[in-house]
């Protein structure tokens, strides 16, 4: 069935820091069928109008994770976004580099912080030498256990979620949605033997900085649903915390995190209703109630009532001098 052509007006962010000159938007106009992916349109521009337009791309089939960019202000894969609906909705297509990552040139961004956050999750199986994998054959894992990974193995590391995440923007210490989804993937892996340690550590390494805004899940082209896995991690982390000795190094860190940043809205609720010790056992339930009306706050900030939490902590163990 022959398709109508549409006139695509594409405004592309251009900047070559090395070449000097201010960033600008350059307008290109093309006639294309509406199903044409944005990537194809950009490659047509490169081939026919301006070969200096710079972007990352490779697979053109949403599997290599190269081509994420801002398309009409949303972080998306260029190869998987058809131009037709964009033009229908916005009249034109504005193409900009991803956010939360410094610019290299045009649409190419510096992904160092994204990859480093991923590395910080210790993304590999950690095994106990005393409990080795079965010799010469695979570890047994049932389809139900495979289900536990949910959609996290689909992640193509495109960083669309990282670009969309307000917590990344606000706090460089936040690992970002992809890294946390990756952590989840290792936490639920029956072959991994560092589950407890991972869950305890992450609490001082940014888990609680997530704002539960779900923008990552909305941005993800592979339906990995990072925000839901982060929620699971928080639940598991609290349960894991319940299992460690009070006063352990990790537990202290956990409390400090709450005290300093005060971003634990869930925790605040649980703490206020049940008190600290009571809350641990109740955590799962508390979350369920709370999840029904998620609060969306754009920036991590010290939550209201942080003083109260601080007072509770102060009473339990006085803040060391020189802290903060």
């Amino acid at each position: 069935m022959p398709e109508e052509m549409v006139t695509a007006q594409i405004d592309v962010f251009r900047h070559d820091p090395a070449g000097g000159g201010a960033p600008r938007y350059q307008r290109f106009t093309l006639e294309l069928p509406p199903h044409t992916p944005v990537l194809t349109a950009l490659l047509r521009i490169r081939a026919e109008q301006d070969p200096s337009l710079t972007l990352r791309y490779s697979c053109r089939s949403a599997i290599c994770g190269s081509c994420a960019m801002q398309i009409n202000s949303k972080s998306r894969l260029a190869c998987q976004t058809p131009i037709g609906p964009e033009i229908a909705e916005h009249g034109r297509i504005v193409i900009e580099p991803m956010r939360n990552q410094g610019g290299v040139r045009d649409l190419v961004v510096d992904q160092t912080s994204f990859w480093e956050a991923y590395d910080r999750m210790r993304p590999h199986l950690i095994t106990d030498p005393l409990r080795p994998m079965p010799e010469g054959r695979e570890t047994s894992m049932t389809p139900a256990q495979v289900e536990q990974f949910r959609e996290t193995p689909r992640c193509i590391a495109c960083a669309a979620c990282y670009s969309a995440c307000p917590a990344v923007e606000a706090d460089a210490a936040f690992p970002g949605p992809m890294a946390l989804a990756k952590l989840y993937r290792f936490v639920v892996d029956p072959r991994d033997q560092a589950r407890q340690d991972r869950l305890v550590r992450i609490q001082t390494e940014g888990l609680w900085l997530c704002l539960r805004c779900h923008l990552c899940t909305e941005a993800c082209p592979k339906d990995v649903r990072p925000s839901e896995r982060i929620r699971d991690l928080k639940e598991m982390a609290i349960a894991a915390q319940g299992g460690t000795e009070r006063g352990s190094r990790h537990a202290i860190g956990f409390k400090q995190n709450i005290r300093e940043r005060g971003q634990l809205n869930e925790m605040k609720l649980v703490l206020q209703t049940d008190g600290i010790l009571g809350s641990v056992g109740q955590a799962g339930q508390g979350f369920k109630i709370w999840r029904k009306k998620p609060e969306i706050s754009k920036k991590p900030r010290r939550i209201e009532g942080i003083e109260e939490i601080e007072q509770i902590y102060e009473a339990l163990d006085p803040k060391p001098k020189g802290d903060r």
Partner: protein
Amino acid sequence: MRRHEVLVVGAGLAGQRAALAAVEARRDVAILSKLHPLRSHSGAAQGGINAAVGKEDSVDTHIYDTVKGSDYLGDQDAIEFFCREAGPTVVEMEHYGTIFSRAEDGSLARRPFGGQGFPRTIYAADRTGLALLQALWERLGTEHFTLYQEWDLTNIVVREGRVQGIVAFDRRTGQFEGIAAKSVVVATGPAGRIYGRTTNAHTCTGDGIAAAYDAGALLKDLEFVQFHPTALLESGILITEGARGEGGILKNVLGERFMGKYAPHVLDLASRDVVSRAIVTEVREGRGFPGDFVHLELMHLGKERIETRLQEICDFCRNFAGVDPVVDPIPIFPAQHYMMGGVGTNIRGETNIAGLYAAGEAACVSIHGANRLGGNSLLETLVFGKQAGLAAAAYAASASAPELHDSDIADAEAPVRRMMSRTDGEDPQAIRTAMQQTMDRYVGIYRTESDLLEGLRQIRAIQKRFERVRVVDRSNVYNLNLTDALETGHMLELAEVIVVGAFARTESRGAHSRVDFPSRDDAHWMRHTLARKTPEGPNLSYAPVGYTRWEPKERVY
């Protein structure tokens, strides 16, 4: 000058596996890749990886299927080694963390794949390549090595009969640099973009194969190019056999179910090469749709069956082609899919040059011979990636220090400076498109002497045009215009080798199908083509096929 003992170029499955082996052998290892390792094309493989681990299956049947599939051009000694390594390799990848699909009893799930006697293809949903690539990269991350990320290899330096290192440039700075290395492993993957119609990623441009060829390495069996019958029009994205397995049918412009004429019994389920040839015949005889394609119809299967059983194909069609298989026919055509040939190696990944190794799709061992079996190439990257890494490490342990000179860098950079300073000349994209059209038209599925001669004439003319290639982008930062030009130059060299090899081989074997020589000719042609670069073009010689115990037979399925 930067210096390493082992330098692996390419960070797909083959390169990563080579690097891991070399690191484990305690060498100082670096990986250089034009893409972040996780963006390598290995991640696109969906179907699975072969290993005869089932109780009913055996390594011998895997060997036999591979030998037969290769149309007796595969080296049987290499294939035997390869199939024996399959089980341990898959288990090792499982231990590294790969999340494979599982059977109810907790063992690795297996699916049937074309040309094989048993379901022996182990998989991870519809993303086996991605699952392996993630696990291997994450395993490698626990080791110490240097990563040159988004660096493009341009030259391999060979002097005094051995490798001295490479020249490459960092995309971020545009700076050309020499990296001295005792051994270099070429694992730069396929060159599918030589063709316009290909299932390969845009970055599959054969750079490492061409650099090795320039440095004096012998290229083996490059004329054997596998085509896949069903790729999406325009994008070339692969539509798996599963679509026809579920009952999809092919139709021409007259609405005829044409496979009845070519394979009266199995119809649309005939093997890849039979279906590809049938489609080309329909189009050549004027029964294709305008724009040279045919239709794959799924509509009769019903919405529910399509959306549940063929979910991923459904997504591809909707996301990338703007067709909804529930109501529309899918426009498809055969596309280049896999290169059986590559840098010639033995089972240790050694080439004809001391210190130079190759592995993965860039190499030719040969285990695929004239035709690769689905699921064998992922396995190849791991089995022979490891061998190449071990051999490269062993060589590096005893070799003397390599010597790179400033002139090596200057020599590599000179043509680039010329491209970037020309005030007239042609854009690399236009040259690339011309090459792709020639290869699609004259060096495709059906080959004849006259087509190949015309193809060769055109490729040589395009090579002449390339001498005047112009890079208009003068920036030193992430200059893709320059990358385009370099890649196009590499592909033009390989295109010539493919055509010359195909012209010389006056028989039909596996994926090489000569209309004027329709049968296999074991007496003359059961041998490998070896191409060496000379100023006059590729110089061909031939080498015998490794033979153990499998008598050549006619290949019927």
